[in-house]
Protein backbone atom coordinates (compact mmCIF):
# COMPACT_ATOMS: atom_id res chain seq x y z
CA UNK A 1 0.00 0.00 0.00
CA UNK A 2 2.66 2.46 1.03
CA UNK A 3 4.54 1.65 -2.15
CA UNK A 4 1.50 2.49 -4.25
CA UNK A 5 1.23 5.83 -2.54
CA UNK A 6 4.86 6.54 -3.22
CA UNK A 7 4.55 5.72 -6.85
CA UNK A 8 1.47 7.89 -7.10
CA UNK A 9 3.42 10.76 -5.68
CA UNK A 10 6.21 10.33 -8.16
CA UNK A 11 5.28 7.77 -10.77
CA UNK A 12 7.97 8.77 -13.21
CA UNK A 13 10.75 8.10 -10.68
CA UNK A 14 9.52 4.59 -9.90
CA UNK A 15 9.25 3.83 -13.58
CA UNK A 16 12.72 5.14 -14.25
CA UNK A 17 14.22 3.14 -11.36
CA UNK A 18 12.54 0.02 -12.65
CA UNK A 19 13.85 0.67 -16.14
CA UNK A 20 17.35 1.33 -14.82
CA UNK A 21 17.27 -1.96 -12.91
CA UNK A 22 16.28 -3.85 -16.03
CA UNK A 23 18.98 -2.12 -18.07
CA UNK A 24 21.62 -2.95 -15.43
CA UNK A 25 20.53 -6.58 -15.39
CA UNK A 26 20.84 -6.76 -19.17
CA UNK A 27 24.25 -5.11 -19.09
CA UNK A 28 25.53 -7.65 -16.56
CA UNK A 29 24.20 -10.44 -18.73
CA UNK A 30 26.03 -9.29 -21.85
CA UNK A 31 29.25 -8.15 -20.20
CA UNK A 32 31.35 -11.37 -19.98
CA UNK A 33 30.99 -12.20 -23.68
CA UNK A 34 32.64 -8.92 -24.60
CA UNK A 35 35.56 -9.42 -22.17
CA UNK A 36 36.42 -12.92 -23.34
CA UNK A 37 37.10 -11.75 -26.86
CA UNK A 38 40.09 -9.73 -25.71
CA UNK A 39 42.42 -12.59 -24.87
CA UNK A 40 44.16 -15.16 -26.94
CA UNK A 41 46.92 -17.42 -25.69
CA UNK A 42 49.23 -16.37 -28.49
CA UNK A 43 49.06 -12.67 -27.73
CA UNK A 44 49.34 -13.39 -24.00
CA UNK A 45 52.54 -15.33 -24.58
CA UNK A 46 53.86 -12.59 -26.82
CA UNK A 47 53.10 -10.06 -24.08
CA UNK A 48 55.11 -11.92 -21.42
CA UNK A 49 57.90 -12.77 -23.85
CA UNK A 50 58.45 -9.22 -25.05
CA UNK A 51 58.23 -7.81 -21.51
CA UNK A 52 60.98 -10.14 -20.31
CA UNK A 53 63.07 -9.76 -23.45
CA UNK A 54 62.90 -5.97 -23.21
CA UNK A 55 64.16 -5.95 -19.62
CA UNK A 56 67.13 -8.24 -20.31
CA UNK A 57 68.03 -6.33 -23.47
CA UNK A 58 68.01 -2.92 -21.79
CA UNK A 59 69.93 -4.20 -18.75
CA UNK A 60 72.56 -5.80 -20.95
CA UNK A 61 72.83 -2.72 -23.17
CA UNK A 62 73.27 -0.40 -20.17
CA UNK A 63 75.99 -2.69 -18.79
CA UNK A 64 77.71 -2.84 -22.16
CA UNK A 65 77.60 0.94 -22.42
CA UNK A 66 79.12 1.22 -18.95
CA UNK A 67 81.90 -1.15 -20.05
CA UNK A 68 82.55 1.03 -23.05
CA UNK A 69 82.70 4.27 -21.06
CA UNK A 70 84.49 3.08 -17.93
CA UNK A 71 86.59 0.34 -19.54
CA UNK A 72 85.69 -2.32 -16.94
CA UNK A 73 84.80 -5.02 -19.46
CA UNK A 74 83.25 -7.57 -18.92
CA UNK A 75 81.87 -6.69 -15.47
CA UNK A 76 79.38 -4.08 -16.64
CA UNK A 77 77.80 -6.54 -19.08
CA UNK A 78 77.59 -9.31 -16.45
CA UNK A 79 76.08 -7.16 -13.72
CA UNK A 80 73.90 -5.25 -16.19
CA UNK A 81 72.40 -8.45 -17.59
CA UNK A 82 71.63 -9.65 -14.06
CA UNK A 83 69.78 -6.43 -13.31
CA UNK A 84 68.13 -6.81 -16.70
CA UNK A 85 66.81 -10.22 -15.67
CA UNK A 86 65.44 -8.71 -12.48
CA UNK A 87 63.76 -5.89 -14.44
CA UNK A 88 62.37 -8.38 -16.95
CA UNK A 89 60.89 -10.45 -14.14
CA UNK A 90 59.40 -7.30 -12.63
CA UNK A 91 57.84 -6.47 -16.02
CA UNK A 92 56.33 -9.94 -16.27
CA UNK A 93 54.92 -9.76 -12.73
CA UNK A 94 53.37 -6.37 -13.50
CA UNK A 95 51.90 -7.65 -16.76
CA UNK A 96 50.44 -10.68 -14.97
CA UNK A 97 48.90 -8.39 -12.33
CA UNK A 98 47.35 -6.16 -14.99
CA UNK A 99 45.91 -9.12 -16.84
CA UNK A 100 44.54 -10.91 -13.78
CA UNK A 101 43.05 -7.70 -12.38
CA UNK A 102 40.90 -7.62 -15.50
CA UNK A 103 42.07 -4.28 -16.85
CA UNK A 104 43.76 -6.49 -19.39
CA UNK A 105 46.35 -5.98 -22.07
CA UNK A 106 46.76 -9.57 -23.20
Amino acid sequence: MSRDKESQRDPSKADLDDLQQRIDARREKYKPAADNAHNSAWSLGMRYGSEFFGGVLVGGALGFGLDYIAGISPWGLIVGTMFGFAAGTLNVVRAAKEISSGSNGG
Partner: protein
Amino acid sequence: MADTNPIKQFEIHELVPFEAFGLNLAFTNSSLFMLLTAAVTIVLFTLAMSSRALVPNRAQSVAEIIYGFVADMLRSTAGADALRFFPFVFTLFIFILVANMLGMFPYFPGPGLHSFTITSHLIVTVALAMLVWLTVIIYGVFKNGPKFLKLFVPSGVPAYILPFVSLIEVISFISRPISHSVRLFANMLAGHILLKVFAGFIVMLGAGLGVGGYVIGIAPFAMTLGLTALEFLVAFLQAYVFAILTCIYLSDALHPGH
Protein backbone atom coordinates in the same frame (compact mmCIF):
# COMPACT_ATOMS: atom_id res chain seq x y z
CA MET B 1 54.74 -21.12 -60.50
CA ALA B 2 53.66 -18.36 -58.17
CA ASP B 3 56.18 -16.92 -55.82
CA THR B 4 56.01 -18.82 -52.55
CA ASN B 5 58.64 -16.86 -50.67
CA PRO B 6 56.80 -16.06 -47.43
CA ILE B 7 58.79 -12.94 -46.58
CA LYS B 8 58.70 -11.25 -49.97
CA GLN B 9 55.56 -9.42 -48.82
CA PHE B 10 57.66 -7.34 -46.42
CA GLU B 11 60.00 -5.96 -49.07
CA ILE B 12 60.24 -2.21 -49.46
CA HIS B 13 60.09 -0.81 -52.98
CA GLU B 14 60.97 2.71 -53.99
CA LEU B 15 58.05 4.24 -55.83
CA VAL B 16 59.35 7.79 -56.20
CA PRO B 17 63.13 8.05 -55.73
CA PHE B 18 64.13 11.13 -53.78
CA GLU B 19 67.44 12.01 -52.19
CA ALA B 20 68.28 14.94 -49.96
CA PHE B 21 71.31 15.77 -47.79
CA GLY B 22 72.86 12.42 -48.76
CA LEU B 23 69.89 10.53 -47.30
CA ASN B 24 67.62 8.23 -49.25
CA LEU B 25 64.19 9.72 -48.64
CA ALA B 26 62.37 7.86 -51.41
CA PHE B 27 58.61 7.55 -51.34
CA THR B 28 58.21 3.80 -50.80
CA ASN B 29 55.31 1.37 -50.69
CA SER B 30 55.49 1.72 -46.90
CA SER B 31 54.96 5.48 -47.18
CA LEU B 32 52.13 4.85 -49.63
CA PHE B 33 50.35 2.59 -47.16
CA MET B 34 50.81 5.09 -44.32
CA LEU B 35 49.19 7.74 -46.52
CA LEU B 36 46.46 5.28 -47.49
CA THR B 37 45.83 4.49 -43.81
CA ALA B 38 45.41 8.17 -42.99
CA ALA B 39 43.29 8.78 -46.10
CA VAL B 40 41.00 5.80 -45.49
CA THR B 41 40.50 6.84 -41.86
CA ILE B 42 39.65 10.43 -42.76
CA VAL B 43 37.32 9.49 -45.62
CA LEU B 44 35.47 6.81 -43.66
CA PHE B 45 35.00 8.98 -40.57
CA THR B 46 33.94 12.00 -42.64
CA LEU B 47 31.39 9.91 -44.53
CA ALA B 48 30.15 8.21 -41.36
CA MET B 49 29.68 11.46 -39.47
CA SER B 50 28.44 13.55 -42.41
CA SER B 51 24.74 13.15 -41.53
CA ARG B 52 25.29 14.21 -37.89
CA ALA B 53 21.94 12.70 -37.02
CA LEU B 54 20.64 12.65 -33.45
CA VAL B 55 19.51 9.08 -34.11
CA PRO B 56 22.57 7.66 -35.90
CA ASN B 57 22.47 5.43 -38.94
CA ARG B 58 24.68 2.35 -39.11
CA ALA B 59 27.90 4.03 -40.22
CA GLN B 60 27.54 6.79 -37.66
CA SER B 61 26.85 4.21 -34.93
CA VAL B 62 30.09 2.42 -35.73
CA ALA B 63 32.04 5.68 -35.56
CA GLU B 64 30.39 6.56 -32.24
CA ILE B 65 31.02 3.08 -30.82
CA ILE B 66 34.74 3.36 -31.66
CA TYR B 67 34.81 6.80 -30.07
CA GLY B 68 33.08 5.54 -26.93
CA PHE B 69 35.25 2.43 -26.81
CA VAL B 70 38.50 4.42 -26.72
CA ALA B 71 37.08 6.99 -24.29
CA ASP B 72 35.94 4.22 -21.89
CA MET B 73 39.30 2.48 -22.15
CA LEU B 74 41.16 5.69 -21.32
CA ARG B 75 38.81 6.60 -18.47
CA SER B 76 38.91 3.17 -16.84
CA THR B 77 42.70 2.66 -17.00
CA ALA B 78 44.08 6.19 -16.50
CA GLY B 79 41.27 8.15 -14.85
CA ALA B 80 38.98 10.93 -16.04
CA ASP B 81 41.77 13.53 -16.15
CA ALA B 82 43.54 11.41 -18.78
CA LEU B 83 40.87 12.39 -21.30
CA ARG B 84 43.09 15.27 -22.40
CA PHE B 85 45.11 12.54 -24.14
CA PHE B 86 42.03 11.24 -25.92
CA PRO B 87 42.96 12.60 -29.39
CA PHE B 88 46.43 11.05 -29.07
CA VAL B 89 45.24 7.58 -28.00
CA PHE B 90 42.36 7.63 -30.47
CA THR B 91 44.71 8.50 -33.34
CA LEU B 92 47.16 5.75 -32.38
CA PHE B 93 44.39 3.17 -32.06
CA ILE B 94 42.72 4.06 -35.36
CA PHE B 95 46.02 4.33 -37.24
CA ILE B 96 47.21 0.88 -36.13
CA LEU B 97 43.78 -0.69 -36.60
CA VAL B 98 43.33 0.64 -40.14
CA ALA B 99 46.95 -0.15 -41.07
CA ASN B 100 46.53 -3.75 -39.85
CA MET B 101 43.24 -4.12 -41.70
CA LEU B 102 44.70 -2.72 -44.95
CA GLY B 103 47.47 -5.30 -44.58
CA MET B 104 44.86 -8.07 -44.66
CA PHE B 105 44.06 -7.50 -48.35
CA PRO B 106 45.94 -10.18 -50.34
CA TYR B 107 46.00 -8.04 -53.48
CA PHE B 108 45.68 -4.36 -52.94
CA PRO B 109 45.51 -1.70 -54.39
CA GLY B 110 45.31 -3.75 -57.61
CA PRO B 111 46.08 -7.11 -59.27
CA GLY B 112 49.79 -7.79 -59.45
CA LEU B 113 50.47 -5.43 -56.58
CA HIS B 114 50.76 -6.92 -53.14
CA SER B 115 49.49 -5.43 -49.96
CA PHE B 116 51.83 -4.14 -47.31
CA THR B 117 51.42 -4.11 -43.55
CA ILE B 118 53.29 -1.11 -42.21
CA THR B 119 53.09 -2.40 -38.62
CA SER B 120 55.09 -5.49 -39.62
CA HIS B 121 58.19 -3.28 -39.75
CA LEU B 122 59.94 -2.69 -36.45
CA ILE B 123 60.96 0.86 -37.34
CA VAL B 124 57.32 1.94 -37.61
CA THR B 125 56.21 0.39 -34.32
CA VAL B 126 59.32 1.70 -32.54
CA ALA B 127 58.50 5.21 -33.78
CA LEU B 128 54.96 4.89 -32.39
CA ALA B 129 56.17 3.43 -29.08
CA MET B 130 58.85 6.13 -28.68
CA LEU B 131 56.17 8.75 -29.27
CA VAL B 132 54.22 7.36 -26.32
CA TRP B 133 57.31 6.96 -24.14
CA LEU B 134 58.58 10.49 -24.76
CA THR B 135 55.09 11.87 -24.18
CA VAL B 136 55.04 10.11 -20.79
CA ILE B 137 58.46 11.51 -19.81
CA ILE B 138 57.94 15.06 -21.08
CA TYR B 139 54.39 15.42 -19.78
CA GLY B 140 55.26 13.64 -16.51
CA VAL B 141 58.17 15.98 -15.79
CA PHE B 142 56.20 19.03 -16.97
CA LYS B 143 53.21 18.24 -14.76
CA ASN B 144 54.79 16.67 -11.68
CA GLY B 145 58.30 18.16 -11.72
CA PRO B 146 60.69 16.20 -9.48
CA LYS B 147 57.76 14.19 -8.10
CA PHE B 148 57.82 12.27 -11.39
CA LEU B 149 60.91 10.46 -10.06
CA LYS B 150 58.67 8.82 -7.42
CA LEU B 151 57.87 6.43 -10.25
CA PHE B 152 61.27 4.84 -9.65
CA VAL B 153 61.03 4.75 -5.84
CA PRO B 154 58.37 2.27 -4.77
CA SER B 155 56.98 2.93 -1.30
CA GLY B 156 57.68 0.58 1.59
CA VAL B 157 61.11 -0.60 0.47
CA PRO B 158 63.92 -0.72 3.10
CA ALA B 159 66.63 1.90 2.51
CA TYR B 160 69.50 -0.59 2.11
CA ILE B 161 68.04 -2.23 -1.01
CA LEU B 162 66.44 0.93 -2.40
CA PRO B 163 69.33 1.68 -4.85
CA PHE B 164 69.00 -1.77 -6.40
CA VAL B 165 65.22 -1.57 -6.62
CA SER B 166 65.43 1.89 -8.18
CA LEU B 167 67.95 0.68 -10.73
CA ILE B 168 65.67 -2.23 -11.65
CA GLU B 169 62.73 0.18 -11.90
CA VAL B 170 64.73 2.44 -14.21
CA ILE B 171 65.70 -0.51 -16.46
CA SER B 172 62.08 -1.63 -16.44
CA PHE B 173 60.99 1.87 -17.48
CA ILE B 174 63.54 2.07 -20.29
CA SER B 175 62.47 -1.35 -21.58
CA ARG B 176 58.87 -0.19 -22.05
CA PRO B 177 59.13 1.07 -25.63
CA ILE B 178 60.91 -2.17 -26.57
CA SER B 179 58.20 -4.51 -25.36
CA HIS B 180 55.53 -2.05 -26.51
CA SER B 181 56.82 -2.03 -30.10
CA VAL B 182 58.16 -5.59 -30.40
CA ARG B 183 54.80 -7.06 -29.45
CA LEU B 184 52.88 -5.33 -32.23
CA PHE B 185 55.63 -5.92 -34.79
CA ALA B 186 56.17 -9.60 -33.93
CA ASN B 187 52.46 -10.40 -33.94
CA MET B 188 51.90 -8.91 -37.36
CA LEU B 189 55.11 -10.36 -38.83
CA ALA B 190 54.56 -13.89 -37.51
CA GLY B 191 50.90 -13.94 -38.48
CA HIS B 192 51.51 -12.82 -42.04
CA ILE B 193 54.42 -15.24 -42.54
CA LEU B 194 52.31 -18.13 -41.23
CA LEU B 195 49.48 -17.18 -43.57
CA LYS B 196 51.80 -17.02 -46.57
CA VAL B 197 53.52 -20.33 -45.70
CA PHE B 198 50.25 -22.23 -45.61
CA ALA B 199 49.01 -20.54 -48.77
CA GLY B 200 52.34 -21.44 -50.41
CA PHE B 201 51.79 -25.14 -49.57
CA ILE B 202 48.75 -25.21 -51.88
CA VAL B 203 50.77 -23.91 -54.83
CA MET B 204 53.71 -26.22 -54.08
CA LEU B 205 51.45 -29.29 -53.81
CA GLY B 206 49.77 -28.41 -57.09
CA ALA B 207 53.09 -27.87 -58.85
CA GLY B 208 54.59 -31.05 -57.43
CA LEU B 209 51.72 -33.55 -57.64
CA GLY B 210 49.40 -32.17 -60.30
CA VAL B 211 45.67 -32.63 -59.81
CA GLY B 212 46.15 -34.95 -56.82
CA GLY B 213 48.19 -32.20 -55.19
CA TYR B 214 45.31 -29.76 -55.49
CA VAL B 215 42.99 -32.30 -53.83
CA ILE B 216 45.40 -32.69 -50.90
CA GLY B 217 45.76 -28.91 -51.04
CA ILE B 218 42.31 -28.60 -49.50
CA ALA B 219 43.95 -29.21 -46.10
CA PRO B 220 46.34 -26.21 -46.19
CA PHE B 221 43.55 -24.18 -47.81
CA ALA B 222 41.29 -24.84 -44.83
CA MET B 223 44.16 -23.86 -42.56
CA THR B 224 44.68 -20.63 -44.51
CA LEU B 225 40.99 -19.88 -44.18
CA GLY B 226 41.08 -20.37 -40.43
CA LEU B 227 44.28 -18.37 -40.05
CA THR B 228 42.81 -15.48 -42.03
CA ALA B 229 39.97 -15.25 -39.53
CA LEU B 230 42.49 -15.42 -36.68
CA GLU B 231 44.58 -12.70 -38.31
CA PHE B 232 41.58 -10.38 -38.39
CA LEU B 233 41.20 -10.94 -34.66
CA VAL B 234 44.92 -10.31 -34.10
CA ALA B 235 44.77 -7.16 -36.24
CA PHE B 236 42.10 -5.72 -33.95
CA LEU B 237 43.55 -7.17 -30.76
CA GLN B 238 47.02 -5.72 -31.29
CA ALA B 239 45.63 -2.26 -31.99
CA TYR B 240 43.62 -2.59 -28.78
CA VAL B 241 46.62 -3.84 -26.77
CA PHE B 242 48.81 -1.03 -28.08
CA ALA B 243 46.17 1.53 -27.12
CA ILE B 244 45.51 0.09 -23.65
CA LEU B 245 49.24 -0.06 -22.84
CA THR B 246 49.47 3.56 -23.96
CA CYS B 247 46.71 4.34 -21.45
CA ILE B 248 48.52 2.46 -18.66
CA TYR B 249 51.78 4.30 -19.37
CA LEU B 250 50.02 7.66 -19.59
CA SER B 251 48.46 6.98 -16.20
CA ASP B 252 52.03 6.83 -14.82
CA ALA B 253 52.69 10.29 -16.23
CA LEU B 254 49.54 11.64 -14.60
CA HIS B 255 49.80 9.90 -11.23
CA PRO B 256 53.39 8.77 -10.54
CA GLY B 257 53.99 6.75 -7.40
CA HIS B 258 50.46 5.25 -7.52
